[in-house]
């Protein structure tokens, strides 16, 4: 009833892992409980808040809506894999400098959604930015500075290329 354990091989933040997981285990639980990557947050488990957003093969996905076994052989990136050591990613840097972050609970998911957008579309319109983060609920800061920070980061990333 609880799902038979199966082997799972995946790459998380560039590091290969081999695990045994139950077939009904969610990706978010593997990340948080097995791999101790607690930067990925759990807000709702209904795929409604986006706090658990990670990348699977570069696409932003809510890790509460994916079974761990579905990521077999895939590349998963979490918030812990975004900065390069002490060097923040331009999106992170812009969010810090532009004052976009308040309580921070939605921030990791917000970064992951924004990064998936800018990796694919370096020059998004404001509507495209809004759309990219519309699955990420924030409760305190009003989205304005998040949207502006993503635009600032996009500009910086374009300039740097």
């Amino acid at each position, binding site marked *: 009833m*609880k799902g038979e354990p199966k082997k799972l091989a995946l790459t998380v933040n560039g590091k290969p892992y081999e695990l045994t997981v139950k077939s009904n285990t969610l990706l978010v639980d593997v990340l*948080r409980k097995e791999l*101790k*990557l*607690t*930067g*990925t*947050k*759990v*807000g*709702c*488990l*209904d795929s*409604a*808040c986006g*706090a658990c957003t990670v990348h699977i093969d570069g696409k932003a996905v809510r890790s509460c809506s994916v079974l761990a076994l579905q990521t077999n052989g895939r590349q998963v990136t*979490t*918030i*812990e894999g*975004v*900065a390069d050591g002490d060097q*923040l990613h331009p999106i*992170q840097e812009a*969010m*810090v*400098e*532009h*004052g*976009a*972050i*308040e*309580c*921070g*609970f*939605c*921030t*990791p998911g917000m*970064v992951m959604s924004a990064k998936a957008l800018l990796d694919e579309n370096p020059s998004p319109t404001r509507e495209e930015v*809004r*759309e990219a*983060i*519309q*699955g*990420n*609920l*924030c*409760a*305190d*800061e*009003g*989205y*304005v*500075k*998040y*949207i502006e920070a993503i635009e600032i980061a996009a500009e910086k990333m374009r300039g740097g290329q």
Partner: protein
Amino acid sequence: MGETFGNYSIIGKQMPRVDAKAKVTGQAKYAADIELPGMLWGQVKRSPYAHARILNIDTSKAEKLPGVKAVVTGKDFGGFKWGWSRETRDEEPFATTKVRYLYEGVAAVAATSEEVAEEACDLIEVEYEPLAGVFDPFEAMQEGAPLVHEDRPGNICVEYHWNFGDVEKAFAESYLVWEDTFQTPRMAKGYIEPPAVVAYWPDPHHIVYQGAKGSPYFPYRILSRCFNLPLSNVRVIQPFIGSDFGGTKNDMVHCDFAAVMLSKKTARPVKLVYTQFDELSTCLRRHPMWLTIKTGVTKDGILKATYLKVVADGGAYTRMSPLTMFLTGTCMTLPYELPNFKYDAYNYFTNNPSSAAMRGHGLYHSRFAADVQLEMIAEELGIDPVEIRLRNAIENPKPGKVYQTVNEVHVASCGVKECVEKVAQAVNWEKVKGKKRVEGSKAYGIAITAATYNSGTKLSAHNACAAIIRVCEDGSVNYLTGASDVGQGSDTVTCAIAAEVLGIGLEDIDLKRVDTAFTPVDPGSYGSRVTVLAGQAAIKAALDAKRQLLEVAAQQFGVKPEEVEIKNKQVFVKSNPERSMSWERLVRIACYETPGKVIIGRGYSTQGISLLGLAVFSRGVGDIGTNYSFTAQAVEVEVDVETGLVKCTDNSVIAHDCGFPLNPQAVETQCQGGSYHQGVAAALYEEFKMDKGQTLNANFIDYKRPRACEAPMTRVEHVLTNDPYGPFGAKEASEGSCCSAPPAVINAIYNATGVWIKDLPAQPEKVFWALKKQREKGKGKK
């Protein structure tokens, strides 16, 4: 953006938040992220009835389940009851004799895994005798209605009757008397982080509690009493907090008591994490209120009198309802002059989850009713809505003077006129006023409102925030505070204040989050109190440390301490700045010159207790705030007249008088967020649908939240009034815009369509039917 204010080194300028890097990299640990060796998982057993007598609880089957380590029920707490104040202790950690709302906790389990704990809960057998319930205040007030608390006749939870001036006489003398009823919705707090906690007993006499609490000294006090331990033995260590808008994250919920009692029984750490369903269906929510407001004005639109009658749904337990009902009334005399004011408030117990404080606490309800009504009155009298607000707005008191309202609220700085003028100018009011714009099926309307909010909120008993500044021997500084940053940015501004006063950099200060074993006691993060009161504590602690260092410097320079100054990490003689040394050198001399000093600066706030007296809830007089912020807001809406769908456009401006913006960027996000998440959300989106105590939409799919796709790109303009009671002149930022947004949205909808939505939220269906009714009425007239 990028604006700087005042002639300071750090404050008033753009500064990165001290906790932003930890948050943006996922390193910041929240309660649910904590894991301890040997940790067990807990789960709460909940009642399937909204109102029922508990006849028997049998835990024997659950106890026998392999992996179960302990089961607790309400009886384990020995009759302990708790509440928001001594007089209102009406709640047990777990119900023992009666449940009063659906899914109220009756027991809890600790087991080796979440799955086992959940299974064990299913094995607990509870025998109930279901009772008839009351599910809104109008049912609750009926004669012979079932009683939620047998000792509370009439289901009355809170009742206030205030009368200032002569309302009846003023109505009789008024040119126009206008009466209307408004309604505010049942709303979630809306934070994304559900309650979570880990607790353990390092020995049988000490508790360690790490929970998602924005006011960590609430559990500190409550747990001390509950477990009969001295406060010195209760250690609350605060993780990062995923927002707290009042209620659940101030007070206790079942998981908090469960974690501590289960860990006592098992001598192992116990962790409980609520689901969002637990949160939305059982935790504290914003009060729904029915507000009947009657206002008299002169021919020129000058307010003469208001009579406000409020009926509120308090839910199952008292919680903070006495404060809510006070706040709903007290600031009716701001931001406009009101010489006569009468208030009757009735808050009833019902078999719904308890209501409590929420961002914009109290004032949001009455400001919505009053500012929508003012718009109606302006139209009736043919006065420009901006003009009527300016005519009634309180003047900024001259320096040294204080404005006193008829209910003895005191205002030393008031920028409301400037706020209204600024937003009017920003949206080009003179050109756009009274003009309807229709493009296809979309109608556009714009409106301007004004609001106030109390900051540095002071209640009876302990009010003081404190700070300890430890100057380390290498010149770095530890900042210890009992104040909590739940996202509003207080950690950053208190560090900035300390750095400014000490004359060092923000990066030189390392803030320690609350650990009640080491940090000084603090009331909590509520009522926009932290920046104002913890800010004063920061100033005092920094001055204390600085005084000690200046004495050493004076000795070195052979001058008096008052002749020395520290700025940008340079210590120098004021009259001859070339005689100087570095901050690090001064600290080293102080610490190392035999026998060596230990530089510790201490300070606590006094503003909250020493000013013009405290508020008296029963009489409705006095100050709940140390000072008061003022806000004006312009909102433009786009109404789809075919579907009733309303959204705010980017033509959205807030002007906010926070006295002095210590961190301008943070003031902007606070105003934008307060307006959208808790203001516009109330006006357009959020409402719990209830059926006999059951929350039908207890998830973020069916319960519509404000999202980025519809977020107005609100601009924020700063209005500076330098309040004499705030640190560097500061007052609150954010709760004001929670209050100005809902009436602005509703007035804008009217200006777009000619339809008044008096019961929030203006969801599409409601607007659709109102528009249809209006069209049919129009046809009938023809």
